[in-house]
């Protein structure tokens, strides 16, 4: 397919646009829009099969396309040292052959029927995402049920896919400044809970997983009772339900992973991590413990993040990028999570700036947010930004499938998606200040610095090189 792209698009961005990739972090919000008004929760039809599988369907006949997403409650949170990264490896293996559809058939069948697919693994979930024309619905239900219940594990395929995963690790961590820094900051901030290890897995674990490890993981984690299926688009819910009964009723439920055995103990002092690499520019990443997504404090945290770094008039951008010109970019954010996790602030410092000064200025701005409730105008702005962002995620059938499934898994009910604007509206200036004051303490903080090993030639011409 010819891609009409602008110069500067990265190979990775193209790859993501074209074929199966996985993102070892929380899903990025999808851009989108459709012809149907986003209606309240009662436009979503639901069904729970006897084996525990839950199905959500939202009809939208304005575009001849269907998004079918399967959310499995399996992620790096369910792993242990020795098999870290196996959920993500498993996600790859789900495309490599099942009983009725041999090696390569899943992708071949989809693509020759005008469909595309992707998948991603996070700390908490593995999500399989399918997009296809309506006529392929039954084919998809057949293929998805087969790989849920009867995946095959050919040793040659395991070996080859191991290479692919290692290649992914290399490009997203080993050869990637931010990825390398994030991995270390994450591990320093989270010391005990399974969120401590990277979703992609430690290198030696990637090299050591066995086929038996995979089969065991599959048996435990992949079950209908551990799955939420979401269909949005040009389908009739009765058809989806009938096919769900036909293809999934026969798959037995079984107990899966329980809660992780280890809770993260409170952090009682600042942690500092340094990573040294051959690179041009330094980076900085701060991490602070925050409660899980489901927490009643989450709306205030979302408003706080918008306030801090959404738009060029945001607190951190205005100060660090614009006024003091210390950074190229700064962003505060978090990931959906089932257990308490982290709010991160990422800073890309300009060349030649003093990193201690960057940190000091950043902390000064965080102190400001903790000290005074934000003015009404700014609070209104943050809420408007959140609301516009909320609508943006709901533009496409893909975006809505993602949001419905995410809310169902992380907040306990898809209905929370429709209630969220109301919850955001209720957030007060004092509420934002209070939650900021709880989060942005020195004891709650992990600071990561990426230090270039060789200083760049910078504004002088380098004299080396063959040319």
């Amino acid at each position: 397919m010819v891609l009409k792209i602008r110069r500067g698009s990265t190979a990775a961005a193209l790859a993501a646009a074209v074929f199966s990739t996985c993102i070892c972090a929380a899903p990025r919000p999808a851009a989108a829009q459709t012809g149907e008004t986003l209606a309240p929760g009662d436009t979503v039809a639901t069904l729970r099969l006897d084996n525990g599988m839950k199905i959500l369907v939202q009809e939208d006949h304005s575009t001849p396309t269907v998004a079918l997403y399967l959310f499995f409650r399996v992620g790096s949170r369910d792993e242990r040292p020795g098999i870290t990264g196996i959920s993500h490896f498993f996600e790859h293996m789900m495309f490599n052959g099942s009983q009725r559809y041999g090696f390569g058939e899943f992708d071949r069948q989809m693509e020759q029927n005008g469909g595309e697919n992707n998948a991603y693994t996070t700390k908490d979930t593995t999500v399989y995402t399918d997009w296809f024309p309506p006529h392929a619905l039954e084919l998809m239900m057949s293929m998805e049920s087969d790989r849920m219940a009867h995946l095959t594990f050919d040793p040659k395929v395991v070996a080859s896919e191991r290479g692919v995963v290692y290649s992914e690790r290399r490009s997203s961590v080993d050869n990637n400044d931010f990825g390398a820094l994030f991995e270390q900051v994450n591990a320093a901030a989270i010391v005990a809970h399974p969120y401590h290890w990277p979703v992609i897995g430690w290198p030696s674990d990637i090299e050591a997983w066995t086929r038996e490890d995979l089969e065991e993981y599959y048996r435990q984690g992949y079950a209908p009772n551990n799955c939420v299926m979401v269909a949005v688009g040009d389908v009739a819910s009765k058809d989806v339900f009938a096919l769900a009964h036909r293809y999934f009723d026969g798959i037995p439920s079984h107990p899966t992973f329980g809660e992780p055995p280890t809770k993260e103990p409170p952090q009682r002092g600042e942690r500092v991590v340094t990573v040294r690499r051959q690179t041009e520019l330094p980076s900085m990443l701060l991490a602070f413990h925050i409660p899980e997504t489901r927490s009643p404090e989450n709306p205030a945290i979302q408003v706080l993040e918008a306030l801090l770094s959404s738009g060029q008039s945001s607190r951190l951008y205005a100060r660090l990028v614009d006024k003091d010109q210390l950074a190229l970019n700064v962003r505060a954010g978090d990931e959906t999570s089932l257990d308490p996790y982290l709010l991160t602030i990422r800073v890309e410092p300009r060349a030649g700036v003093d990193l201690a000064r960057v940190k000091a200025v950043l902390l000064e701005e965080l102190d400001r947010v903790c000290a005074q409730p934000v003015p009404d105008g700014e609070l209104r702005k943050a809420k408007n930004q959140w609301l516009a962002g909320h609508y943006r995620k709901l533009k496409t059938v893909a975006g809505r499938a993602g949001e419905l499934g995410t809310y169902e898994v992380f907040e306990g009910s898809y209905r929370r998606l429709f209630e969220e604007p109301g919850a955001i509206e209720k957030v007060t200036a004092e509420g934002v200040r209070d939650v900021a004051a709880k989060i942005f303490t020195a004891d709650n903080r992990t600071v990561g610095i990426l230090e270039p090993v060789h200083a760049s030639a910078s504004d002088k011409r380098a004299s080396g090189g063959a040319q």
Partner: protein
Amino acid sequence: MKRCFLLLATASLYAAAPHLAPVKLPPFSREVLPNGAVVDVMVRKGVPLVDIDVAVNGGEEADPAGQAGLAEVTGTLIRRGTATRSADEFSTALDALGGTFRVQTDPQSTLVESEFLAKDISSGLALVADAVLHPTFPAAEVAKTLAQRRDMIKSAKSFPSRAIDQYAHAFFFGPAHPYGHVVTEDSLAAIGRDRIADYHRRAYVGRNLAIAVVGDIEPARVRSEIAQAFGSAPAGDSFRSQQAVALDRSGSPKLLLVDKPEATQTYFYIAQPGIDARNPDRTAIELVNTLFGGRFTSMLNEELRVKTGLTYGAFNRIDEDRLQGWNTVATYTKTDTTVQAIDLAVATLKKFHDEGITAEQLDSAKAYVMGTRPRQLETINQLASELLRLEVLGLPRDEIDGLFARIDAVSLDRANRVIREYFEPRGLTFILLGDAGKIRESVSKYASDHREIQISRPGFGGS
């Protein structure tokens, strides 16, 4: 019994896909203002948002020699101070609405892409028109933006996938072709406030502007507001593109190796001349490229990822811009398997060229392109972007509406002819980015004309 039923059910699922209805542009109005500005308005209900996008014809092609980045930097600065708003005031007003405002420059245009809640369209239009028509380019903001852009060159070198794209453009297209002019520290040094203001004066004029508004709006009222907001711009002159610069196929292979010490992977492009956006073979090429390197089950990805695990993803990219572009393999592999991966990519290209495709493969490509098309025209952003692309390139609406008919019309013979013509395994240009110490000997076989530069050296290797 159950097994038989399943087999039957499976068999029926393999039946040929039904013919899909063409995906066309929804209805929209198009008018030309007295000053020459084109205005497209399309109503799309759904989430309560509206896109206001503006295209300024020219883009990278409009950058004078030695000033690569002029159009881009000008675009970045239009919101950083206008006749009635300081940079802060603009940002505050924009953010207060929950709006977004982004400016990108591509080979043929500068694109302002903004989005607002539908209820705020009037405020949004006022902001966008202010930035597009009345920027003041304060000296301090110009200095700041140029400094940031210089730093972005450095940071691009921390991301091999970004960096290689710049090196590859400079090396493949060369200094005689506009697409070979990449933004460097030197080109930025040649751009100052005067040149920026002058470029804006010449380019951001009625005859050179196209505006697309798509969303949950009341069209008559909106059309009148747009006319008011943009009608005051002087008509000026529209951008005149240079004559097409034909890319030479007759040369021998050449290779550029960009040394990034301690890199654990080698990124590589394998490029040859491609097409422009009006090429009569473009639809056939889209189809065959789908098979060669345009989807997960492509031949390239099959060989380099699925069968051998050499890479996380391999694909082939063919740009469609105003001038002739390239056709290039783009992928990466770990350092040790560099030669194995490049050899395999070239062998796959040669097999594709020599053997062509079957009718079944062509059908699969057609089904894929048609089946995935609705998702490319689903959002207000995509629709606005398509409308503006038609305007910038001077293409008729049928370019979009007639796609399925053009796809149907591609015969197997024609498909195999374009493969032979456009997917040559000889005379290729190789661009590699990796640990030269480990690979320079073994990759020298790909071209006797080979060069090496350090990634730490300023710029991207072009002249």
